[in-house]
């Protein structure tokens, strides 16, 4: 490798022209510009979504407190238009919560198994399977929810419709398990081997090592894994759109249909005419989502950063 470097340098260095120096400066400028592109895009997303949402604040039918805490979502009502997103927010929260109840134990358990119990070959292949699972598109998950999962739910529980909160929770759980597994596996790997060896030397079994040593010392990383799983579940659109049914309501049990913030935007954006109140309020819902996921991701990042510093 160093040979090629030497030869290129021998050819270019002594006869560097003004042009090549200028080209290099130009390239470095492009690199620097690309470097800040991420900031530009995050700001642009906020700016453009907010710009489309802004007119709603000057509408007569809109009240921010009602928007956040009212459960009445009747955006197309002729007589009494109401934009209350609380039922949608609650839908998002309940689906995510249900998904996490299932995904967190299974995700952490699988991560522990992959990291501590299995041999290198098996570890490698399980990690590949997990990675492939993470690649399944969300619309395919939605389709699985719509067909396979809803049939299973109807036949097991006798619910009138198979697309409901439980279905959405199960699908989201399956979707967020891979991310939880891979990040918690990283967190467990980051625990120094000397900890394990010290515990082993005291006569601890694998389980005792996991319970007494690994879980306490990797707890921040595991927390971050769970938070990123939550972030993914809250932001997921197509799967919940297809799997949770379409009723805007506060669910009373896992077999009720719900609608989430994301699914609501996806379902109604096509019908809302550009420039209408309905259209603007959907963008405001987008801002709400953006803020929620921003907070979750920021917390996860701070937690991970906390580990690195330690």
């Amino acid at each position, binding site marked *: *490798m*160093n040979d090629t*470097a030497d030869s*290129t*340098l021998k050819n270019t*260095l002594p006869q560097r022209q003004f042009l090549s120096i200028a080209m*290099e400066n130009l390239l*470095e400028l492009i*690199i*620097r510009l*690309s470097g*800040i592109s*991420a900031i530009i895009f*995050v700001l*642009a*997303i906020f700016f453009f*979504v907010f*710009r*489309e949402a802004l007119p709603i604040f000057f509408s007569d039918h809109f009240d921010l407190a009602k928007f956040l805490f009212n459960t009445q979502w009747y955006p197309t009502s002729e007589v009494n238009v109401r934009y209350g997103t609380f039922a949608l927010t609650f839908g998002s929260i309940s689906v995510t919560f249900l998904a996490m109840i299932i995904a967190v*134990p*299974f995700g952490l*358990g*699988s991560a*522990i*198994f992959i990291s501590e*119990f299995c041999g290198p070959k098996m570890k490698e292949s399980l990690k590949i399977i997990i990675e*492939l699972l993470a*690649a*399944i*598109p*969300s*619309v*395919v998950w*939605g*389709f*699985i929810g*719509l*067909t396979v999962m809803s049939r299973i739910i109807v036949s097991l529980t006798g619910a009138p419709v198979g697309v409901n909160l439980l279905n959405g929770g199960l699908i989201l759980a*399956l979707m967020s398990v891979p991310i939880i597994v891979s990040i918690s596996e990283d967190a467990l790997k980051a625990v120094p081997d000397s900890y394990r060896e010290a515990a082993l030397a005291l*006569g601890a079994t*694998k*389980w005792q090592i996991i319970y007494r040593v690994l879980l306490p010392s990797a707890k921040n990383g595991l927390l971050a894994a769970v938070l*990123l799983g939550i972030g993914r579940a809250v*932001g*997921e*659109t*197509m799967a919940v759109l*297809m799997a949770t049914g379409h009723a805007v309501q506060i669910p009373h049990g896992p077999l009720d249909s719900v609608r989430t913030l*994301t699914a609501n935007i*996806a379902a109604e*954006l096509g019908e809302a005419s*550009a420039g209408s109140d309905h259209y603007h309020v*959907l*963008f405001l819902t*987008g801002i709400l*989502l953006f803020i929620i*996921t921003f907070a979750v*991701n*920021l917390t996860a*990042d701070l937690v991970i950063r906390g580990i690195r510093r330690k």
Partner: protein
Amino acid sequence: MTDPIDPVTRFTKTDFVVRKERIQSVSKILFSLMVISMIIPLLAIIAYLFYHALPSLSWEFLVEVPKKGMSEGGIWPAFVGTLYLVLISLAIAAPIGVFAAIYLNEYARDNWFNRIINLAVINLAGVPSIVHALFGLGAFVYAAQFGYSIISASLTLAIMTLPVIIASTREALASVPMTFREACWNVGATRWQTIRAIVLPNSISGILTGIILQVSRAAGETAPIMFTGAVFYKAVSRGDLFPYQLNEQCMALSMHLYTVATQVPNVKESLPYATAVVLLCSVLFVNAGAIALRVWLRNHKKW
């Protein structure tokens, strides 16, 4: 704890040891059951999809156009549309992403500004896909006046894939040992010369793997293209490789699956299954390729 290495008691287990070993084996079984219960149902589900898709799956299905209001026929326009969207979005996202990663890994110092960039990358990766859709609609379709078109949809997808390309490229760049760069600087090379002659050639395969993995992600996304450029139906001739203009709307495989699964009445039963299987297989095929490349590279690492 038990007495350590006393020759007599060495092989007789005390109650305590018996108990802790029992817990140990129970926990091992429990954890392996967790892994199994995660993987087996999924394999079963995928097998179920395949089983129901079988009557429709054929080469004809891939190259044929949808017929009878999309309730029969094939998926060619959607398949080509997805190819268009993926290729154009990656052609936009890959250079920006790679340059951004070069900046973050090779140029940036550890100061507050670059910490904000890192934070932005992480948050961009966490933005929900439907918010990307809103952004694409507001910024590209209306503000930039691209209209509902392939170019709007591709730009939206590009911004969505960008943070992950940045992260994977950074990882590839960071795996090039620092000594390589130092040796190069020592013979008088500038920063960019070092990057071009040393860093990029040594990490190009890792960078490519990261980009290939984004092919499948871009192909599978539905929400961001739904409101920016994908359309329910577009008339295209059978097997036509270049049916779309950049300023037109196009069909896409993921969108098509959503449509035939939820919107179209009287669809032939196996058709949505077959669409799902084609989408799933193309995504998994591309991903498996990228993973195979990565494993091969790891085994052939030069340092």
